[in-house]
């Protein structure tokens, strides 16, 4: 174990150095060795990814080393355990993007396709082919035929779902799974809407509908993130939310919760005779009713359940039949229930 932790520290140092100008001293031998270490590191990841005990030891070693390196070399970025699976790739990217990397190193990493063996360590052809083939196919399927989601989101969502499933299948990995989702959220800060699509696909992903581990986990995580669930529901179309509600009881409940919360942000403006938003939440009465309309159009049992819920809400709020007092009354009237 000692040795493993030492190796891990070495690799992190290598990765850090590859981002600085010290890399200019690397020669062919150093470079190849660095990649060997990186490959070893990838094996560490795959062996211990689902093993909570070993992994947490590695994670704390990582965290210590990250801190230490940050102080010494502020420009380099910390490395998370989940990233170790792509150690060689990271190293390669660092070398490509670091202007101080020696010029002689690049041809080693991108050997002439004609002379190099097909499965050499540095063969990027199959990666490039698969990646562009994937992009190309996603483009041609621009009809949104998967519950309203684009096929790219569906695939990424399924892969995410598979990852979470394998991580959660062993006990003690909840925290780690949460870290994964946190990291993904953090790293896609640029385009949260696309992420929400992927999460929606992950919620829909288990082919076996009785397996609710992943949807349950994702929902719990969403509810921990401030406002995330609400943003997600807003971003996804009413139709999609309905589809997910049909598949997952838990999501249905959570969704209703969000809708109730939205409803609480609306106030009746007596002068205009309308329900208007009071907070920054861009929710209007129409939006709210559209959401419920979609749920009601979905057919049994969701239709009946939603009707019942609305009626219960109306009753609990005083059972008014006149407009303008209770939002649920007005919703019910609007939807002609």
């Amino acid at each position: 174990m000692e040795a493993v932790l030492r190796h891990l520290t070495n690799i992190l140092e290598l990765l850090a150095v590859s981002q600085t100008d010290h890399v200019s001293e690397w020669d062919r031998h150093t470079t190849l060795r660095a990649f060997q270490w990186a490959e070893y590191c990838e094996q560490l990841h795959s062996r211990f990814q689902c093993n909570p005990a070993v992994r947490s030891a590695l994670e704390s070693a990582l965290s210590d080393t990250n801190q230490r390196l940050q102080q010494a070399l502020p420009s380099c970025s910390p490395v998370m355990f989940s990233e170790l699976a792509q150690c060689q790739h990271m190293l390669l990217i660092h070398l490509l993007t670091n202007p101080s990397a020696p010029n002689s190193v690049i041809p080693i990493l991108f050997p002439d396709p004609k002379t190099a063996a097909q499965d050499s360590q540095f063969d990027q052809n199959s990666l490039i082919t698969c990646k562009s083939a994937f992009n190309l196919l996603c483009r041609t399927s621009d009809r949104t035929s998967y519950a309203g989601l684009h096929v790219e989101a569906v695939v990424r969502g399924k892969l995410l779902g598979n990852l979470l499933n394998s991580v959660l299948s062993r006990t003690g990995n909840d925290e780690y799974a949460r870290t994964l989702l946190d990291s993904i959220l953090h790293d896609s800060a640029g385009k949260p809407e696309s992420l929400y699509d992927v999460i929606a696909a992950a919620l829909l992903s288990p082919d076996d509908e009785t397996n609710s581990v992943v949807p349950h986990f994702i929902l719990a995580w969403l509810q921990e993130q401030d406002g995330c669930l609400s943003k997600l529901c807003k971003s996804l179309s009413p139709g999609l939310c309905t589809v997910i509600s049909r598949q997952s009881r838990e999501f249905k409940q959570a969704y209703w919760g969000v809708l109730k919360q939205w409803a609480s942000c609306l106030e009746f403006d007596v002068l205009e005779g309308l329900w208007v938003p009071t907070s920054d939440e861009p929710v209007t009465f129409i939006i709210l009713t559209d959401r419920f309309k979609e749920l009601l159009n979905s057919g049994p049992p969701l239709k009946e359940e939603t009707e019942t819920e609305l009626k219960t809400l109306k009753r609990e709020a005083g059972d008014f039949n006149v407009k303008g007092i209770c939002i649920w009354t007005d919703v019910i009237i609007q939807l002609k229930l």
Partner: protein
Amino acid sequence: MEAVSETDVQFWMAKVVNWGEATSCSALLDTSRHLGSLRSFLQQVLQGLQQMSSTSEAMKTFPFVGQFLGRLCWNPCVIADERSQRLLLRCLSCLYSAEPLNAVEQKANMWIKNMLCHLISEEEGSVAHATVKHAGLTPKRYHSEALQKVVSLMTEEVIKSCNGLPNTSARCSNGNIYVMSTACAALVTCPQMSPLIGALLKHSMLCGTSCLNQEFIKEVSEALIRLYLCVFCLSLLHSKRLVLEDEAVVNLWCYSPSCLEGAAVSLLESVLSDHETMTQSLDKHVNDSLLPQASADHCHIFLTVSEIYRNVLTEIDENLAVRALIQVFTVCFLQRLTGQKTQDRLPLRAFFPHVMPSLLPPLLTAPSEVPREAWLDHLIWIRSLLQSVMENEAGEDVRAYQAVFQAWFLLVQCGYWVDTAAELLVLAAPENAEPLLWLLTFFHHPTNRGHQRSQQTAEAREAWTHLRMLFLTRPPPPRHLSAVKELLSSSLSANLVLHLFLNFTVFSHGPVSIINEINDKVLTEAAVKRRALWILASIRCRLNSAATRDDRVHSRLRTLQDTLLQT
């Protein structure tokens, strides 16, 4: 000498600017239509760059190259095509300087590194980037799995739209099929694509309208042909693997006649290219090509393949390899045909429309289905039918000539009867030899070119007489040995004599040692040995489907083949 012409440069630069990132359907279509010619142009550019001594010189000679390659790197349709991708990367590799001498070269290096970065990773901050980064897999594995998933989703979509078919009167309602097949044109050599390609081809079969992109069809057929050649030539180094289900391949042939022709021709080429392997396992090889099965299931496929081989034979009618192929192909085809359900079976007439119908029953019945004692009578029957066809040739009318040719071609297809005649000649009594010799002569010399028929018949009889003496007398008389050798080297009937000779070797009853001695003395030249191997290949295929197995004969055959292959 200019590596690339100015007009080409202007044409291609305009194209790549127009295509952009191939986000629109029309850009995608246009890219896929030009993929083939783009590859040729890239090849020229690469050759030009390879001549340069430095990057600075390259940039001066080919000022367009930076923009050109850069834009192509952003076009996924081009990158996804393995061959174009390799050419692009090799061009980039040419432009990279391990020791940059000036600012231009340094800038070029930086730019190339950027391109490579772009090719292997995603834009930071995007969901793609985030999900790949934390996927717990290498990017290569992630994308491979992602590709598999998207292929299976799209394949399901295509299959679902197939379930509404066949409905040949309605237009294919799924316009998406066309776009999908356009994308697939670039991707045919990607192994994960085969389920989708198979589904698209099946859809096209059921749909009845041409809803597949032509480029796609062309690419699939070319990839298949390359696969055949690679597998058959046993060179897997540069093989482009396209593994399709048998059904998809046959659908492709039904859909595209040029594809079928390509398959038939490539079978022929592969057979001719490697006589050592082919003569050992011709029937397996022919069956693996799927053509016999496809021919049995689809009459038009059989007719097309027969037509192609018939045309080849008119060009090189003395070629024993081609004849062996035709014979084995017909045997495999007939075996598949008998395997079909009776209610699905078309009458044989449908498969052999041009030939005199009375010829079909005797010739299409295999020798294994006829008792050995009846062989002679059967062959006499065949001979009399053929003679009646030839009697009408007398007028030198074109139609009459064609009738003879068709009859002869049928005999070539059913060459196992000619082989049977040759086998019988080994042990025949002189009074029975005449019809057998006639058949052999007709088989080897169908036309009466220069009115040599009588001379050929005489030579056949002479050869037979010498061979009988040679193999029946012990020790083998040198007079007959040299006579046989003489006949083998004269060009007029060399093949016929060789044919007879080999049958004697395999089927006569003398001691093995004597026979080996005779062989060693007679089969000395390389060209003769090669032709001998082809004749033995047909004999072997006939014996493989015989009713009973004669071990002695088989071991003779084996020994002879091994000896011939040794040198």
